């Protein structure tokens, strides 16, 4: 993958990207600098594979811009989308919890820029630096929430509520109503992310329209009242809006 001189000049940008991430918040400057120096900014195109399930984890990643899909292969050879992540979010570091292998694959949903960081450096830091070990609690927590959310979403929420939950994750509580959103990626991928087929997605979206008065035109969604949307979508979930499992 290209690693351009122009990207190299962005090293202060790399440091500021790191310190904004929960894994590096409160970590001493020398350690952050070590990661910043070792980090590689890389561009990927839509559909590029970053790693596959069961690959050895040599790197972990922080997303600078764009969207990345995490997926697992099912027993029947299909792909189950387990998460879709964007700017500021990290992935791949949970391999440390899985004997150094990635428990899922990752691909670029669209043009994406990533900061790639060496996994052995993270391992060493956890062993040598108590602050970094404590910071890993964030990763543990993220890992747990992802697992819990998947189970809860699929067992407790109906399809319309799952779409509502997805839309709420694009909102913040201080947004002025009516809220206008642009879907971050195409509807078929959203359907896959939510564990439903495209036809189910369309039917569920219609029901969500009826229940919450949202308007959907192409990739634009208008939510007239956040409270109505959260009341409908969160009623079967243990979390309330704004959800605290976003990280």
């Amino acid at each position, binding site marked *: 993958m290209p690693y351009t001189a122009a990207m190299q000049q962005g090293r202060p940008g790399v440091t500021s990207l790191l310190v904004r991430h929960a894994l590096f918040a*409160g970590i001493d400057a020398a350690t952050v600098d070590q990661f910043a120096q070792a980090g590689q900014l890389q561009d990927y195109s839509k559909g590029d594979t970053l790693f596959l399930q069961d690959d050895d984890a040599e790197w972990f990643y922080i997303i600078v811009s764009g969207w990345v899909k995490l997926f697992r292969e099912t027993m029947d050879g299909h792909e189950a989308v387990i998460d879709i992540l964007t700017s500021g979010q990290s992935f791949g570091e*949970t391999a*440390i*919890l899985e004997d150094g292998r990635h428990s899922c694959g990752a691909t670029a949903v669209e043009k994406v820029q990533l900061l790639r960081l060496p996994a052995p450096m993270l*391992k060493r830091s*956890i*062993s040598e630096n*108590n*602050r970094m*070990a*404590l*910071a*890993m*609690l*964030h990763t*543990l*927590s993220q*890992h*747990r929430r992802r*697992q*819990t959310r998947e*189970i809860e979403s699929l067992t407790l929420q109906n399809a319309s509520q799952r779409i509502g939950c997805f839309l709420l994750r694009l909102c913040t509580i201080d947004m002025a109503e009516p809220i206008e959103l642009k879907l971050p990626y195409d509807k078929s991928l959203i359907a896959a992310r939510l564990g439903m087929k495209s036809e189910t997605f369309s039917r569920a979206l219609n029901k969500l329209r009826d229940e919450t008065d949202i308007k959907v035109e192409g990739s634009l969604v208008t939510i007239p009242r956040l409270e109505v949307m959260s009341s409908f979508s969160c009623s079967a979930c*243990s979390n309330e809006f704004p959800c605290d499992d976003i990280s």
Partner: protein
Amino acid sequence: MSDAENKEDYARLMQEYLDLCNRALAANRDRFPYGAIWQAAEQALSGEEMEFAVVDDAPKARMRVCLKDRHLDLQECGCAGEVPVRRISADYIRRLLADPQKVIDNPSLIDWNWMKKSAGA
């Protein structure tokens, strides 16, 4: 169910949760990165006692614990005054207790984030 029975039920739930946490701590004491994380947390907390509330539709029971030698010791709890900020959902505990071996094999299923918050990290 009477209030007293109800309270006892939640206290037992909390005790079972604590036991499961301790089994996970013991089984993964030397496993990377868990051992390193818990050791760091123990040093940062340095004997501090932390109070938790188990919550269903409302707070139902409380416990006070201290992390020592990679083990959560149950402390005497006066359990009066303001409800503690560290809250654990009863549903979440029930889900964990439904398959304890899965939790022991995969301790990331337990919410350890309170350690980070308590240590101010």
